[in-house]
């Protein structure tokens, strides 16, 4: 018989070596043979389904732990021990023994020189506007409050929501629409036992944070239960929102966009106040699990908290109005108004483009042309990059400033504006008139396309997408297209665009509403749709705006105001959809036949070069 013990040992060693190799290659961590206070678990991590609390529970049996570092999507993780003795004890007891790997396989440990940088999640600042008042209620009050809700007519136990038990007072929170009906108050008000809390709150926080709520939601969480990340509907409730934790501590997870994650320990009998940014821009939730990893009370390390039943009282005051917060990303009012604006724009898109783009360019063609003579270098370079004999189409060629950049190729321009085309024609350029939504060119026929400052004049996303798809259609395979659109952000990377530089007065930014313009006939032009009028040479406040063009002369269809020197000044409103970062590239990505080669910011524009497959 072969000595199976020895054989097994060498097998473990081989596996161990392999894991160490992966570790040093992937995480750039140096494994050492002598004990250090840092330990790597080489073959288990977040990607194998290992949880922080599971490791900690096991490790704490053998020594003190300062932190567990787990990296997303990795099959290894790290233990930062209190000192070398703790580390040695943990190592000796867990290495080759603890079954924390996938399908309960044995884990392999290594001492390492240093743990990769990963911020201790509990050392982060709390989200802006988040306040925790410890011991907000006494143990006696806790008991009285719990009795108050149990004595209410409807037995709480009957009220089963998917993951927890819930009861509402004052108004019912309707989970189907994530809102309340202010017209339908419940018979049962917030229990009078809560009344004392609001006077107490007044003494502890500034006035603006001390509301008297009219709605209460009570949640009972058993161990293992949680609530998915959510934001309390902006339009339903005012700022702030209060949450009183009773019976047990809990860890609440706050998240903002993808990369901000702040777990917050809510101690039993504390009051959590979510105000400002933390109320509007962060989601909060409770991960369904039986234990939490929390900072230990002494020593600065971590410890395990086994959950027991927790009852939370969430107090809110109905808003009864639209939300006017400054955090659009999670705002239901903002989303609804955006949607309604988009619907309105969609219903008048063609007419709006005719009135506030085509007609305006025809009117201002000559003046416009005088101000557009200098080609942008990057556009020029793109056109010069085509080889001799190529055919390049300039969609929205304007006064034709890019039509004679490269003498070795044929450039054919098109535009919607007759006025501008006549300027081109006088310059002996090849042009025709069309709308960029329907290019009257053969499929797969041109080597290149440019579309400079055109697509931002289309009033819906569907139309902007169609314009790009048309250029993709007429390109030959491997043909390339350059698109420039105006950026909403005119100060990308702290570099003011020349558009802002030309604002000599350096006025403060603002978009004025059409109605309070001194030039009243403006509103007659915007009968189609109510959009803000952008103040020239300032940052954009909205994506869909009217941008004025001031002209000194006379003519119809314009606003005339007498200037100080007695001259007559006319103002035309051009419709623009200014682009957010990434928006143009994302539009292009929706067209299957093309591939975005690069996206960049230039002269206050977002730009994309794509290639047809």
């Amino acid at each position, binding site marked *: 018989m072969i000595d199976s013990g020895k054989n097994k040992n060498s097998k473990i060693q081989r596996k161990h070596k392999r894991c160490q190799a992966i570790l040093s290659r992937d995480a750039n961590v140096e494994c050492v043979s002598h004990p250090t206070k840092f330990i790597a678990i080489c073959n288990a991590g977040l990607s194998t389904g290992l949880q922080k609390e599971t490791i900690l529970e096991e490790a704490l049996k053998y020594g003190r732990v300062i932190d567990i570092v787990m990296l997303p999507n990795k099959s290894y993780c790290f233990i930062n021990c209190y000192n070398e003795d703790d580390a040695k004890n943990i190592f000796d007891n867990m290495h080759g023994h603890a079954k924390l790997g996938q399908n309960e396989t044995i884990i392999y440990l290594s001492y390492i020189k240093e743990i990769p940088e990963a911020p201790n999640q509990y050392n982060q600042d709390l989200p802006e506007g988040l306040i925790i008042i410890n011991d907000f209620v006494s143990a006696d009050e806790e008991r009285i409050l719990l009795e108050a809700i149990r004595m209410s007519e409807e037995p709480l136990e009957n009220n089963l929501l998917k993951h927890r038990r819930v009861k509402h007072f004052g108004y019912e929170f309707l989970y189907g629409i994530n809102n309340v009906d202010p017209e339908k108050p419940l018979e049962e008000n917030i229990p009078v036992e809560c009344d004392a809390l609001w006077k107490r709150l007044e003494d502890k926080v500034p006035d603006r944070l001390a509301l008297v709520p009219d709605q209460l939601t009570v949640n009972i969480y058993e161990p293992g239960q949680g609530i998915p990340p959510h934001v309390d509907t902006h339009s339903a409730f005012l700022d702030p929102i209060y949450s009183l934790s009773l019976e047990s501590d809990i860890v609440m997870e706050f998240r903002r966009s993808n990369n901000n994650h702040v777990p917050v320990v809510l101690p039993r009998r504390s009051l959590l106040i979510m105000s400002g940014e933390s109320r509007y821009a962060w989601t909060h939730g409770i991960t369904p699990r039986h234990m939490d990893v929390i900072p230990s009370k002494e020593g600065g390390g971590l410890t395990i908290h086994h959950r027991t039943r927790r009852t939370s009282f969430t107090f809110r005051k109905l808003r009864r109005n639209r939300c006017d917060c400054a955090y659009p990303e999670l705002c239901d009012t903002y989303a609804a108004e955006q949607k309604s604006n988009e619907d309105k724009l969609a219903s008048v898109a063609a007419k709006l483009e005719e009135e506030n783009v085509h007609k305006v360019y025809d009117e201002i063609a000559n003046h416009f042309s005088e101000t557009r003579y200098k080609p942008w270098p990057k556009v020029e370079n793109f056109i010069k990059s085509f080889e001799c004999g190529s055919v390049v189409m300039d969609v929205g060629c304007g006064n034709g400033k890019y039509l004679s950049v490269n003498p*070795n190729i044929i450039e054919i321009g098109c535009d919607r504006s007759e006025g501008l085309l006549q300027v081109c024609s006088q310059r002996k350029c090849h042009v*025709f008139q069309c709308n960029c939504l329907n290019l009257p060119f053969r*499929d797969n026929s041109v080597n290149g396309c440019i579309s400079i400052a055109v697509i931002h004049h289309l009033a819906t996303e569907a139309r902007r997408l169609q314009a790009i798809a048309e250029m993709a259609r007429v390109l030959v395979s491997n043909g390339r297209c350059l698109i420039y659109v105006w950026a909403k952000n005119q100060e990308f990377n702290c570099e003011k665009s020349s558009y802002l530089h030309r604002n000599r007065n350096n006025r403060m930014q603002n978009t004025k509403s059409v109605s309070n313009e001194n030039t009243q006939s403006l509103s007659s032009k915007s009968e189609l749709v109510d959009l803000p009028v952008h103040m020239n040479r300032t940052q954009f406040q909205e994506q869909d705006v009217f941008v004025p063009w001031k002209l000194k002369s006379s003519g119809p269809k314009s606003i005339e105001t007498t200037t100080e020197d007695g001259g007559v000044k006319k103002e035309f409103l051009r419709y623009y959809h200014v682009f957010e970062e990434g928006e143009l590239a994302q539009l292009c990505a929706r067209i299957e036949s093309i591939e975005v080669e690069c996206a960049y910011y230039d002269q206050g524009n977002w730009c994309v070069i794509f290639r047809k497959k």
Partner: protein
Amino acid sequence: MKLITYNFLTSKCIRGVKVGYPLKLKIVQKEVVQTDFNPEFITRLLPRLDYPTVHMAAELVDCAEGVPKELGENYAADQDLLQKLHHILLEIDIIEGQLECPETGRIFPITQGIPNMLLNEDEV
């Protein structure tokens, strides 16, 4: 409108039109504008064009003499032919006239040298 542009234009954007090419060209007024002849440029441009339509246009402007119905393999060496094609494609400017969709008969007017290819919302 130069005939190089004509070579690319279609009416296929009209709803229901399958090919829309070539458009029927009617010339009311044309001009000849001299431009520099670059044989390499014309040589490289030709493969990108629809040659039958080049020939058809050449006949229309009475310049088809010496221009073959099909482009032979050695056209690049034929300076005479390249010169003729240069003239046809880049020097003849249609000032007034019209383009007609071969499938629907829709007319696109050419005025002051600019073809108007605009379509109404209900045509697309």
